[in-house]
């Protein structure tokens, strides 16, 4: 292998992505373990090496004496070409073992636009791309991550999906693979289907109505559950979390210690899938976080700790935690960062406490340009909150503010779109010479959210709204950027797709689509041809208003959030009525209680941090 690689690595970009051998990598002798597990990330090394889920599972799996977990990423197109020309199969970084020789190949599905890379990585490994073509000796191909909340579009390619959080269930999967060595693929798949949170798509029959909507998704026999309920890790302090990191050889997107302070969010923004499907809110204790931070800093060498979660400012006792960390690490020259903050003054002041010296840029997400629109999406930020936040930022010394918005939201009018330009211009006036970067993405309705029935705006409509904004945006201090409407369109098709869409994904990959999330590789026309070739239309998935009574392709996946709640929220959105955060305004009846071990969210204690 080394000799083969020596022939090709000098010819590719950033070859250190393909060698392994990083500090912190865990190398085990395969003859001393019972299960080999390849953790596959379907995007480049630079993206994948920053992924928290991958890091957690790498740690959790390698903590087992009987298991070797190794990493593999999607080779960039130049490397792929060399590998194909020289017949080099896709291999793991730790031991350069071909993926075909692993017992389990687990993909991380965090973004729909990485689906074709999954197919390509399977093919590069010499593993049949279609699940139905795999034989007893093929690795078990599984997938987890937030995209599995609607697993159907990838059902043809994945043997088993993990629904929900992976730290605990991955042990049961490894145990099942261990116990079923030599007993055949079918026996293993049935065993997996019996594990709570594991969905084996080949054990379900999907039938369609004449209009193309789903009629039913039913298990093939009584050994298989009718619905698969997501897994939740209840106690964050005892959940597996790495204390050392594999230090990437090339610069990655996030160069810092990832410290997950909290999981879940109860704010209830109606567009946000993560905010719905990661409920209930759970936090790590201040003590646990301190221990983890100490060890991660000492074992990595990073000079920054990122306090991550969906809404870090909502961590109970965040001021205390931040104060303690700032004090603890200032002499070690280790800084803190918050990935994004709520648009209000107290949060900006918190960020100021963190970034005492480096005032890089401050990111705020009002999400919409008018109060009406923010009420529709239940984003409880007022214009006043935003102005106060920016005033605080200016007072604290920030010169650059970034504002995140979405267009194409349900019920949006041109007035709402124009509101983005108006609001941003007002923000720019708050400080002399304040530079405001406005980033406008296009709304994609997601499964398990109140907007799962909503039509997505067409590409033409999004582009019209983008132009509207461009024409209204006159202020010199405001710069505007947006996402490619066609990328969002494809994301819209894939995220709410059904099992038939697998044919289109296969056809798109055959046409050469991969790295779809990278504009230089994105081939919209090939995708549209592939969808049509599969006898489908993008409009059916993305732009159609679905009926509340329609069986949705993901109805057999239980996120813990009740459909009645989602319908109620969608109707309130139509009226522009808000729903307060349940920690402030009382239980909103989202349904998550139904899967809690206790019958109340109150059973999960908030932990105040005082130091």
């Amino acid at each position, binding site marked *: 292998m080394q000799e083969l690689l020596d022939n090709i*690595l*000098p010819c590719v970009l*950033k*070859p*250190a992505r*393909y*060698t392994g*051998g*990083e*500090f912190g990598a865990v190398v085990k002798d395969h003859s001393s373990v019972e299960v080999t597990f390849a953790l596959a990330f379907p995007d480049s090394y630079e993206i994948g090496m920053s992924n928290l889920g991958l890091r957690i599972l790498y740690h959790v799996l390698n903590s087992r004496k009987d298991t070797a977990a190794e990493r593999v990423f999607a080779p960039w197109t130049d490397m792929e070409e060399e590998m194909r020309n020289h017949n080099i199969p896709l291999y793991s970084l730790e031991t350069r073992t071909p993926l075909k020789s692993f017992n389990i190949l687990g993909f991380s599905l965090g973004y729909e636009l990485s689906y074709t890379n999954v197919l390509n990585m399977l093919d590069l490994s010499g593993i049949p791309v279609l699940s139905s073509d795999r034989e007893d000796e093929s690795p078990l191909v599984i997938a987890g991550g937030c995209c599995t909340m609607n697993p159907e579009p990838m059902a043809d390619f994945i043997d088993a999906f993990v629904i929900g959080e992976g730290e605990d269930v991955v042990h049961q999967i490894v145990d099942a693979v261990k116990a079923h060595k030599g007993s055949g693929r079918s026996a293993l798949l049935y065993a997996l289907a019996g594990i709570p949170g594991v969905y084996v798509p080949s054990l379900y029959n999907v039938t369609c109505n004449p209009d193309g909507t789903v009629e039913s998704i039913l298990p093939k026999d009584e050994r298989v559950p009718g619905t698969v309920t997501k897994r939740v890790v209840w106690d964050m302090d005892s959940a597996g979390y790495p204390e050392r990191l594999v*230090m990437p*050889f*090339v*610069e990655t997107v996030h160069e810092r210690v990832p410290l997950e302070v909290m999981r879940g969010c109860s704010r209830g923004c109606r567009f946000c899938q993560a905010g719905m499907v990661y409920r209930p809110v759970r936090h790590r204790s201040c003590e646990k976080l301190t221990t983890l931070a100490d060890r991660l800093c*000492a*074992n*990595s*060498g*990073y*000079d920054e700790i990122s306090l991550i979660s969906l809404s870090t400012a909502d961590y109970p006792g965040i001021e205390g935690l931040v104060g303690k960390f700032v004090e603890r690490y200032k002499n070690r*020259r280790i800084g803190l960062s918050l990935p994004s903050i709520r648009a209000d003054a107290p949060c900006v002041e918190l960020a100021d406490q963190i970034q005492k*010296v*480096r005032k890089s840029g401050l990111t705020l997400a009002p999400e919409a340009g008018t109060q009406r629109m923010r009420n529709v999406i239940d984003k409880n930020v007022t214009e006043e909150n935003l102005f106060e936040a920016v005033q605080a930022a200016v007072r604290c010394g920030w010169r650059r503010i970034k504002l995140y918005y979405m267009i194409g939201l349900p019920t949006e009018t041109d007035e709402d779109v124009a509101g983005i330009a108006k609001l941003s211009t007002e923000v720019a006036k708050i400080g002399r010479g304040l530079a405001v970067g406005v980033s406008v993405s296009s709304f994609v309705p997601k499964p398990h959210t109140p907007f799962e029935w909503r039509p997505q705006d067409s590409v033409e409509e999004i582009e019209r709204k983008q132009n509207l904004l461009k024409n209204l945006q006159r202020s010199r201090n405001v710069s505007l950027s947006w996402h490619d409407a066609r990328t969002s369109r494809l994301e819209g098709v894939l995220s709410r797709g059904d099992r038939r869409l697998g044919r289109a994904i296969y056809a798109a990959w055959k046409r050469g689509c991969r790295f779809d999330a990278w504009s230089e590789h994105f081939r919209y026309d090939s995708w549209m041809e592939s969808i049509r070739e599969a006898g489908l239309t993008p409009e059916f998935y993305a732009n159609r208003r679905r009926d509340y009574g329609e069986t949705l392709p993901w109805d057999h996946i239980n996120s813990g959030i009740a459909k009645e709640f989602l319908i109620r929220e969608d109707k309130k959105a139509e009226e522009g009525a808000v729903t307060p955060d349940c920690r402030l305004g009382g239980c909103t009846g989202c349904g998550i209680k139904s899967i809690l071990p206790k019958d109340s969210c109150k059973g999960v204690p908030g932990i105040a941090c005082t130091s």
Partner: protein
Amino acid sequence: MRVLLKLRKGEEVKYLSHLDMVRAFEFALRRSELPMAFSEGFNPRPKMAFCSAIGVGVLSDDERIMITLSQPLAPECVKDRLNGELPPGMEIAAAEEVPEGAKSPLATLAASEYSITVGGPSAGEVEEAALKLFEEPQVRVTRTRKDGLKEVDIRPHLLKLSKVESEGGYAVLTVCLASGSSGGARPQDFVEALKKSLPNLAVKKIKRLKQYSFSGQKSCIQPD
């Protein structure tokens, strides 16, 4: 206190670029918790300086790094602590204190000795072609730059051909080339020049063996 380090870049890390090496070293430095001196300013960084870059795929027995400590520490101790934190293939081979007030030992580095292993022609043919280069008044090679291709004369940077040996079917050249901040030739340039008369020549391995400082006359290369 300044400490000069000699770093080995082995097979395991040969595909790291110069920037990747610097990163890997800086992380190791932070993990080692050595008492580092930091730069001033908004974004303080540990004070460290690297010698001139070697290319991706090139091995080295002699990369030089100078670090500045905030308090004195035995160079051996610096070496041991760093070696406990470096990834496999990177190793501090030696550490020595830089005398107070002395000029940066990196600034005087001016030449490197390389071992270049090539396949294709016989060692005799390679030696003949290499010697011929030293007789030419000019040796022009093309370099790829951001703004396109550029032709440069590397003849002034060809300092010495020490030997050409035959080893397991390959020819191994030992050649000394000028390097350092005032310009120089890369071993890949030398290979490109050889390829003009030996088109079937293929590089197997390149390794920087040793770096030299100039003292006095340009022709006089003194080992450190």
